[in-house]
């Protein structure tokens, strides 16, 4: 499955489109939640769950599983979509998102939903967990596994992120790969206007991370970056993924107001139609 071929790329692209459809459907059903940042991360998450990572829904706690930490926990819909598609729970349960008693909390809860590795949502904390997990992997031997984290570009305004990045490089955690979903928008507007973390790649490099910059919607590039991360030794890898907030849904793309908004009934239908007829790369 880990070969980079036209057919594996196509398979992941198809999955990413499914994830986007699930995201729109569940958010439409929930009536609230984070659309833009879930859609921007769909290709990265699809690549992780359907190409890169060793995870098994039938053995969710197997010791040598790879771990994924959604540090930008508000993008929970993309994680839930991937877990459902992977078989961790029935797809129909996605409709329970954000409802009383649901396992699908507004932000991921590891104690409620199998497959969720970290309870995240308060920004900056997930990457810190991921560093702890990478340290544990070192101690755990002989099982070998890898740890993946996904950060938002608004999220990295949190000071804790930089504490964690510093520690990961200090402890030479080459078993850790962090994606930055660089969609350039946060709740209050463009990150460049609210509180610019730029130049982000330079900052990750300065903090001692092997740093790659890719198109976060190009499955082939994501795969190649993950291959490079695997072959990097002595330091963690950051993959700065240039993305489009709301990707795949024409009326949401590049609009900050879709950060924490769910589509209404008409918008849901329109978005699902767009995702039905057009491949997401179009």
């Amino acid at each position, binding site marked *: 499955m880990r070969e980079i071929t036209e057919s594996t790329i196509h398979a992941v692209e198809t999955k990413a489109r499914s994830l986007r459809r699930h995201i729109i459907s569940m958010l439409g059903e929930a009536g609230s939640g984070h659309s833009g940042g879930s859609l921007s991360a769909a290709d990265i998450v699809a690549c992780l769950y359907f190409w890169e990572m060793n995870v098994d829904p039938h053995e969710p706690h197997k010791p040598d599983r790879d*771990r994924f*930490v959604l540090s930008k926990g508000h993008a929970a819909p993309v994680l839930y979509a991937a877990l459902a598609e992977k078989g961790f729970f029935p797809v129909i349960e996605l409709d329970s998102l954000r409802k009383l008693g649901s396992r699908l909390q507004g932000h991921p*809860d*590891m*104690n409620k939903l199998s497959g969720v*590795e*970290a*309870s995240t*949502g*308060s920004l*900056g*904390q997930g*990457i*810190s*967990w*991921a*560093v*702890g*997990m*990478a*340290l*544990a*992997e070192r*101690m*755990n031997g002989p099982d070998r596994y890898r740890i993946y984290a996904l950060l938002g570009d608004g999220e990295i305004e949190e*000071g*804790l992120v930089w*504490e*964690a990045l*510093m*520690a990961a490089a*200090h*402890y030479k955690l080459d078993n850790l790969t962090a994606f930055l979903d660089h969609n350039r928008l946060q709740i209050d507007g463009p990150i460049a206007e609210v509180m610019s973390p730029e130049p982000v790649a330079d900052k990750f490099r300065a903090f001692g991370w092997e740093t790659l910059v890719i198109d976060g919607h190009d499955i082939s590039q994501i795969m190649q970056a993950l291959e490079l991360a695997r072959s990097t030794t002595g330091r963690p890898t950051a993959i700065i993924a240039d993305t489009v907030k709301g990707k795949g849904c024409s009326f949401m793309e590049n609009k900050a107001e879709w950060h924490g908004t769910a589509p209404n009934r008409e918008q849901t239908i329109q978005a699902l139609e767009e995702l039905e007829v057009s491949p997401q790369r179009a």
Partner: protein
Amino acid sequence: MEKQATRDAYGKALVELGRKYGDVVVLDADLSKSTKTADFAKVFPDRFINAGVAEQNMMGMAAGLAASGKVPFASSFAIFATGRAFEIVRNSLAYANLNVKICATHAGLTVGEDGGSHQSVEDLAIMRCVPNITVVAPADGVSTRQAVAAVYHHPGPVYLRLGRPAVPVIYDESLSFRIGRGIVLRAGKDATLIGCGIMVAKCLEAADRLRAEGIDVSVVDMHTIKPIDRDLIARKAHETGAILTVEEHSVLGGLGGAVCEVVCEQFPVPVMRMGINDQFGQSGTPDDLLEYYGLSVAMIMANTRILLSKK
């Protein structure tokens, strides 16, 4: 009288624990020589992680380690462990209900000369109101050693409050420390002194001196602030009819607050709370500070007499 700082006992207990259990991992934030986790680091360098001056990341890393099957003991001064890192403790450790032991030293006024910025007078209150967190404040070295082992076997997040100065050893090895069970050290009938941490020894001394005056008080070591021993508090309220709480902490929300909640609901009797009266500390020697803020044996005795007049 033999004396030992609870932080010293903690350092030794960690090494014992590390020898017994391979899943014990210790984290510190550049204070390992003061918190005494350096003892563990020396023996088990591969299971010790220094976070540097980054308490938030220390707690986040502890979460990741716990989620991976380790039992992390994360140490810093109380002010930083519960203050600086609060929201990480709340969300990453308590909300996720992870098996992390927050073991904070240098709690209370007896930090001493470093002054009010470093004297945590609110940590018990902060930790007590967070769901899932068990809060323990042992009185001496012997009970600290047993508390560390008990905390290891107690699933879920625990806050263990430890101190800087050497304090009298009040227990011997016959102690059987159980989380959630207060210990009756003196059984008097006139009133009950309920203390925690380093104030327990002072309560004992006050009780012995009061006896010479013909006042016969019970003394309870309420080492577990949450879940607090409701049955024991209600029983002592019933048996002695008056309670004095003594803690090296704000009178708001800590031991005194917890005892009042129980007494009010289960068996109302007069209660007085001794502690720090909603103010910050300052520089000084530990002994001078305790004296200045009224946490002395003489003040415990004086307040007991006042309390008896209210019965």
